[in-house]
């Protein structure tokens, strides 16, 4: 049996250090398997979040050899095992213990975003009609498993710690999913511009790179939202046209406003 060394961050939230653990590695193993083995045999109190082990729940986010990854989807045979594998907690949020961080800020942010508000039903039985091609983009956004790796890697949060001014890529995707939902009638553009800080995003696309669901965050969610904000608040011609000819939002929706 082969062995490999895992350099894991151990900390009580205040002081911390890396500790090396050696464990057996076998075919098809992922980083989370190694963590579990170490937890069971060498460090019963190693704190780590995980749940489904299949890349669907977004619980096991960490930084493996410096890259934000889901530990359950990171194969050991994709990593160089002749050196220690570094496993650290995600950096954009306060550390609680070892690999577990306090992600509660994300839940507070979501509550402040205007929820879904549908138009009146399209049919007498209270149901709506939507075409598949009109919801493909929204369905892409709703694949998000809230792993917060995109939040972790975004320099606005990670390095500049602007949590009070910027909601981060995850919630820009959430807003985009609502704004582009064919049935939704709310307008979230004013908050996007001001409290939610969409202007802080400067399209570096690190978020898109780390998303385990391959959601094209920057191109499909953030840039279109920026365009809508610009159209609404900064385009003098658009403002003039709006005054002369107001648009309505009746069903069935074409381009949402």
């Amino acid at each position, binding site marked *: 049996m082969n062995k490999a060394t895992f350099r894991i961050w151990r900390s*009580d*939230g205040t002081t911390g250090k890396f500790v090396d653990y050696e464990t057996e590695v*076998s*075919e*098809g*193993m*992922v980083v989370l*398997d190694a963590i579990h083995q170490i*937890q*069971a*045999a060498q460090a*019963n*109190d*190693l*704190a780590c*979040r*995980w*749940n*489904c*082990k*299949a*890349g*669907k*729940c*977004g*619980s096991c986010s960490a930084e493996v050899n410096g890259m934000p990854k889901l530990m359950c*989807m990171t*194969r050991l045979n994709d990593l160089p095992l002749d050196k220690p594998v570094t496993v650290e907690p995600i950096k954009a949020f306060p550390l*609680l*213990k*070892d690999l*577990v961080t*306090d*992600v*509660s800020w994300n*839940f507070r942010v*979501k*509550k402040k975003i205007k*929820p*879904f508000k*549908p138009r009146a039903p399209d049919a007498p039985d*209270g*149901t*709506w*009609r*939507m*075409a*598949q091609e009109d*919801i493909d983009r*929204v*369905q892409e956004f*709703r*694949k998000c*498993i*809230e792993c917060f790796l995109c939040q972790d890697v975004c320099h606005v949060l990670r390095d500049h710690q602007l949590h009070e001014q910027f909601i981060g890529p995850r919630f820009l995707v959430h807003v985009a999913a*609502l704004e582009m*939902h064919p*049935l*939704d009638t709310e307008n979230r553009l004013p908050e996007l511009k001001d409290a939610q800080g969409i202007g802080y995003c400067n399209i570096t696309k690190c978020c898109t790179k780390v998303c385990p669901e391959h959601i094209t965050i920057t191109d499909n969610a953030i840039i279109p939202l920026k365009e809508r904000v610009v159209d609404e608040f900064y385009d003098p011609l658009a403002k003039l046209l709006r005054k002369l000819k107001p648009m309505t939002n009746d069903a*069935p929706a074409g381009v949402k406003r």
Partner: protein
Amino acid sequence: MAEYPIIEHDVLVIGAGGAGLRAAIEASATGVSVGLVCKSLLGKAHTVMAEGGIAAALANVDDRDNWKVHFSDTMRGGQYLNNWRMAELHAQEAPARVRELEAWGAVFDRTSDGRILQRNFGGHRYPRLAHVGDRTGLEMIRTLQDHGIHQGIDVHMECTVVTLLKDGERVAGAFAYEREKGRFKVFKAKSIVLATGGIGRAYKITSNSWEYTGDGHALGYYAGAELIDMEFIQFHPTGMVWPPSVRGILVTEGVRGEGGILTNKDGKRFMFDEIPDAYKAQTADSPEEGWRYCQGDKNARRPPELLTRDHVARCIVREIKAGRGTPHGGVYLDIAWLKDKVPNSVEHIKKKLPSMYHQFKQLADIDITREPMEVGPTTHYIMGGVRVDSDTQMSRVPGLFAAGECAAGINGANRLGGNSLSDLIVFGKRAGEFAAKFAKENSNMRINPDQIEEAARTALAPFERGAKTGASEPGPYPIQQELQEMMQDLVGIVRREDEMVRALEGIQKLWERAKKVGVYGNREYNPGWHTALDLTNLLTSAEAVTRSAIERKESRGAQFREDYLNKDAALGKVNIVLRRAADGSMEVRREPIPQIRPDLQQIIEEMK
């Protein structure tokens, strides 16, 4: 005496998956104060794994469908051991619950005329499952979460309930610890809803995540509720088998719904070999007819790959045991063969089954559009659970409700795919509604400080034992692993009396060891400590399953006994019920199923 913060609500919901969230939403809509406790982060309960879809007789794809057909399909799948009133309510109310999800923002795949699309699934006569690709569970929980957070529900995340508190016969609250700092919390509530999911972690090969240690089953049992149908565990036929790290992870039945076929190592489609009498009339005669069904031909019947899960799992086990399995001990599930049948099959498969494509590519280096998958049975779901009233979801303990997988009755001896997601929203809503009603109609209870002291002492005992040098049982993990292997081997898909009796003896020995387990470290986010506490629930659930399985001396639905191969007509009229006796032992008895209402019996006859 230590002072712990007391958090008061009218209704306390334990578990934040589909059922728990739906219950909390309904309760809070009536105006009562609701607390929601969950072991992991909000939105990450096991519901996210559900791939297939929500079964509801919307009749959007086949207008021959209606609640009566859904009801009959459910009863037939459950071998008529179901609580027929629950099956009736479920079939009738599922469509409204699905439309409600859409009103809350869910975005299901569409038909060509813009309505909710429905897909075929095992045991359902018509295409019935509302879905989003293969991630319907995620869609459901996210929709409920995003709606729920604006309803004024207090969510207590990463908080585990250790025991319920009682005032006389009624529940009064719950004693819990938070994972982050290990601090204890006391919840005071007039009614409690258990929505804690299943017991998969009692088995070695399972699709369940770490949370599923039978908490609600044990909490209910120790509070005086009855458990019913515990012998019926669904071993989903298609879990991954290789590499070892992913063994057990689910491969959705949706693959078979989209035309996936099962073959053994000789390339034979073995499901055609043995079609049960009860389903012969509804099952295709030839592979060609099966394929036409998957394409939507209303005159074709479904392929045998879409028979009920218990049957398919047994056929797979038969092939493997006979030596006709794959190199890694499974059978082949092949959807790549579609390239001979549809143009653009690669895109089609990636669109309908994106997360299966991703899962196999990432974890097993297999491209399902080109090669077959290796699959084998995995412990997936428990039909058994807390026994509840069909309309209100209340157990025999006043004020204690249960919904979702941890409650029992709707599925009988075997659950149809898609019926769990619909169960969550139908009975989650009812449990919330009636828990709120109970809270409004009943007075407050007293919290007994002695019960709290006892609970705290028991919870901290592993630390005290660990602190003593040379604790005889270092760490909980070996005990957990031995239980898992024992249940897998002795109380699995194929059961025998002598093996199950050995399992009972083994469980007793593990109980003794669990009482001596010691942990080290401190109380902050200490998974070793959490696992030590989980052992109580795991062992209780395992014992309940084993005792019930021994009592039911027949093979029916999900239970297959080598020593009792056939159905026993007398046992087909009873459920196995468990209750905690006064001396603390687990009392097992048979209880006759109430006579079914004549109009419902007639529906079943008509649909045969």
